[in-house]
């Protein structure tokens, strides 16, 4: 702790005559100041990337890779901040990412504004514990206001969901592709949500990135997509209709024992036998696989042995089995879930009932890149549903950013599945909460009223920043918005496209209630925590 803290310590020393007690409080004050300043600087760093017209950050990582992103959680994660209090904000953003998936920038910006408010309160001499408690009151009331202004969502109404996903995508680098990606994310999430629509596990969506073409060519595949390619060395088939798929975890190569071994040849005739033995061994394996009726083989990667050899590929090609190798261990679960097949660990365990069935397995190529598509999978109704998304982009940077954006959009839809309520976007809820809280604050006694008032004021940071990032006059916009909300026009917000304040409900910019409630709760809790810290002790 250099900077403010060490300076403050110096001050404490000079006031030694004030006695022990005051020195401690002086130190606590400076610690708090230091923490708040550090945390606020983090919030300031991401502020400009908020909203549909937000700017991007370019981060050059330790390894020299360049990353361009608009995603708050990613920026903070890569930024490598050092101050311990600043780190809490980074984690805050990550928590929001896990909880809601979207609003990772908002949560940090709100937190920054709340910290600024608490700093003002501290300066007037209000005790941090009181501030902390009042903020909790503010939060509770806000959540009530939000609940009351939300509208229920019908999951059958696809268009409504698409609108929510578009709102999230519009602030990303890939905004111009929102019209394609938004329906895609909705369909993806809904198709895995199951009939009861109780929740959606995003792990059941597999995103495969391919560096070819443009983001426009991204597609949703109701089936399985493998990043691996079909082994074509021996001109084996790359397209199989009415496929029966075996997922194997053993290798089609000459066996090795675990220990160091060597085969000793003492006779020239033995050479023939060895070669022949190898052929027969592989042949037996291939015949066994063929006997189960399988015509597509997915082979798990092995570090000890080659998964396939030229010889086994040759045999597989002869019996017209398509082989896909290098399946990663962690993909096995998803694949077996999708194909409804059982991974086969040894040749002895091969049997026809362990195979997955699909209408078509084919290798598709785009330029120099290839993927294997499995479509028309026959399913049993009770098993979890999965889908794959083929994400394409022209450069690695665009691709990575598109993946993050599509993840956010899917999270938005997931939030709606979890909690079926929506609120308008465009900073309308923030302003509404702020206005309602300000009214309430006037009725609260003493310190409470004052602190809640500040809390209400701090929430205006979102409309303010949104307007600022859109190149509008923030003071003018925020004032007008506040006036409209005071008149009871709940749904009015900032229309970034038109550059004015309009009825956001009509513009159909909506977001899930959960995103905002989670952001607000997390931000408030983080602030409360930072306020309660009164000393930092560095240990080695």
């Amino acid at each position, binding site marked *: 702790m250099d900077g*403010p803290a060490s300076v403050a310590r110096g001050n404490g020393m000079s006031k030694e005559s004030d006695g022990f007690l005051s020195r401690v409080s002086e130190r606590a004050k400076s610690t708090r100041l230091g923490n708040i*300043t*550090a945390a*606020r*600087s983090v919030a*300031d*760093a991401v502020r*400009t*990337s908020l909203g549909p*017209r937000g*700017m*991007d*950050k*370019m*981060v*050059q*990582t*330790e*390894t*020299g890779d*360049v990353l*361009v992103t*608009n995603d708050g959680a990613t920026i903070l994660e*890569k*930024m*490598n*901040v*050092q101050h311990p209090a*600043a780190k809490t904000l980074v984690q805050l953003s990550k928590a929001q990412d896990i909880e809601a998936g979207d609003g990772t920038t908002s949560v940090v910006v709100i937190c920054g504004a709340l910290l600024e408010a608490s700093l003002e309160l501290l300066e007037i001499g209000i005790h941090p514990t009181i501030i902390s408690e009042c903020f909790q009151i503010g939060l509770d009331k806000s959540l009530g206001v939000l609940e009351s202004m939300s509208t229920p969502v019908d999951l059958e109404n696809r268009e409504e969901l698409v609108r929510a996903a578009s709102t999230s995508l519009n602030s990303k*680098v890939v905004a*111009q592709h929102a019209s394609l990606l938004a329906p895609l994310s909705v369909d993806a999430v809904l198709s895995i949500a199951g009939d009861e629509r109780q929740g959606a596990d995003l792990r059941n969506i597999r995103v495969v990135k391919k560096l070819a073409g443009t983001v426009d060519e991204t597609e949703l595949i109701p089936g399985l997509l493998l990043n691996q390619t079909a082994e074509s*060395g*021996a*001109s084996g088939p790359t397209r199989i209709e009415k496929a029966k798929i075996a997922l194997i975890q053993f290798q089609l190569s000459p066996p090795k024992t675990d220990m160091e*071994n*060597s*085969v*000793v*040849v*003492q*006779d*020239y005739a033995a*050479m*023939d036998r*060895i*070669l*022949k033995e190898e*052929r*027969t061994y592989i*042949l037996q394996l291939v015949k066994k696989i063929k006997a189960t009726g399988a015509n597509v083989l997915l082979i798990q990667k092995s570090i000890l042995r080659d998964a396939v050899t*030229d*010889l086994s590929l*040759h045999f597989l090609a*002869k019996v017209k089995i398509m082989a896909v190798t290098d399946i990663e261990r962690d993909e096995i679960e998803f694949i077996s879930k999708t194909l409804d097949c059982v991974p086969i660990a040894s040749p002895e365990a091969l049997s026809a009932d362990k195979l997955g069935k699909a209408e078509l397995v084919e290798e598709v190529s785009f330029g120099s890149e290839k993927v294997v598509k499995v479509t028309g999978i026959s399913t049993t109704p009770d098993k979890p549903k999965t889908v794959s998304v083929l994400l394409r982009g022209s*450069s690695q*940077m665009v691709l990575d950013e598109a993946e993050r954006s599509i993840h956010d959009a899917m999270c938005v839809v997931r939030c709606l599945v979890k909690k079926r309520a929506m609120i308008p976007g465009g900073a309308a809820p923030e302003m509404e909460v702020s206005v309602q809280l300000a009214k309430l604050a006037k009725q609260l006694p003493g310190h409470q009223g004052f602190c809640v008032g500040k809390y209400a004021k701090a929430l205006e940071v979102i409309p303010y920043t949104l307007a600022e*990032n*859109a*190149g509008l006059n923030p003071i003018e916009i925020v004032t007008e918005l506040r006036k409209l909300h005071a008149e009871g026009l709940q749904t009015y917000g900032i229309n970034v496209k038109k*550059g004015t304040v309009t009825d956001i409900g009509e513009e159909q910019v909506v977001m899930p209630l959960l995103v905002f409630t989670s952001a607000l709760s997390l931000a408030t809790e983080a602030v409360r925590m930072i306020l309660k810290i009164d000393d930092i002790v560095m240990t080695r």
Partner: protein
Amino acid sequence: MASQGLSVDGERQHGQDVRTANVTACVAISNIVKSSLGPVGLDKMLVDQVGDVTVTNDGATILKLLEVEHPAAKLLVELAEQQDEEVGDGTTSVVILAAELLRRANELVRSRIHPTTVIAGYRLAMREACKYIKSTLATPIDKLGREALVNAAKTSLSSKILGSAESDLFANIAVDAVMATKSSKKEDGEMYPLSSIHMLKAQGKSASESQIMQGYVLNAPRASQSMPTSVSPAKIALLGFDLRRAKMKMGVTVTLNNPEEINKIQEKEIDLTALRIQTVLNAGANVIFTTKGIDDSALKYFSGGNAIACRRVTMKDMRRIARATGATLQLNMADLNGDESFDPSMLGHAEEVYEDKIRDDTVMMIKGPKVQPINTVLLRGPNEMMCDEMQRSLIDATSVVKRMLDSNMVVAGGGAIEAAVSTHLENFATMLGSREQLAIAEFAEALLVIPKTLAVNAAKDATDLVAKLRAVHSLAQSDPTKISLSKCGLDLAEGAVRNNFNAGVIEPAVGKIKVIQFATEAALTVLRIDDLIKLNKKENTGEALE
């Protein structure tokens, strides 16, 4: 709000500073390639760390070899490479246009226009430009005559090393080469897989002696002089395995107690290979290509069987030969009985395979393949650098021809498109009452950088020429009777304005649209960045903590 005190392990730059730095870096890149634009553009000589020299006029190649460090400039280079991959031509234009857009955007931001407004304006302008090209400027050609294709190839070649005297020859070579790859076996129409164009570079003789040859030239000599120099009709076997003495796998040790056994083992090694060769020959093959080696002691079996064998043929050649002759590459000879055999249906057929000489190299000629005709472009030139550059130019030209065949839409070249779009956007901007107007006007201005650079590179009076060009286009767009003037571009030899469409300077419309799209996309990506965080290298921080 100043954000001091953000302690990051590294450097942080934000706001206007980072924007200016990024723009400067991009403009620097553009300045490097600027002088190579156009038919009279000059070449660059690049020397890499090893000392290898590349002389080129191709924007993509220059950028690839530059090893750009600045992150923003890297973005620009990546997008230019994308253009190279998607269109194959116009990389230099992308870079120049993107840098100009950035430079102007930065000026706008400095004069207190918010970057988001500039971004919105640019995006609007880009959409309008593409729409205008598609609806008004592009000329659809239902049935592309050969002449149009040759002209387009010529336009692409004109800016390259092959441009001057030999453009006729090479334009025809490019068109022939592309047409030869035509395959319509897929349901979705005709395909022109450019990867199957075979080019062979041979130093010596003048570039004008380059030619397109019937048949496939394989740059590999016969494995032995005792083999026949020609076989007809040829039955070709493509092998993917070794024809050297059979070796035992790792982990197999030969232990002998009796010295006489050594001979037997050695014999066995040769016998195993001999048996394989015999199996292939028995299947009827008289030409054998393998990607691996052939043992010298095994050559006699081929000679005895009156067959030609070549060793160490590249996989690329193998695939092309396989496609043309209908052969199947065999990685292994094992059959389902556990024995080894060779199926005659795996053989490819050609009328004749014979040995020929190009320069001092002996090559194998494969004539009259049975499945698909195949051509070889033979490039001649005084030195290696020249040959390399010729190959790059020709690849660009072939991709232009392919684009033409794919899209059937052409536009006039020589700065005509840029001037027309610029004029249109200027009118479009004045119709718009919003704040984006300024950005669109700047976009229009920025497009003129292409004709300007063309004129400057041709040592003509750029100001004068561009002014004339704009006057013509303004007339074309205001007076419906003079619509044909919209195809006017620069005649860089004469230093005048002329109808480039009639003069045969044409380009595929897709290429031009992509140039504008990619350049705008690149500019916007860079413009959207307002923060640059450079993290220190890991190793350094480790030491710093100590």
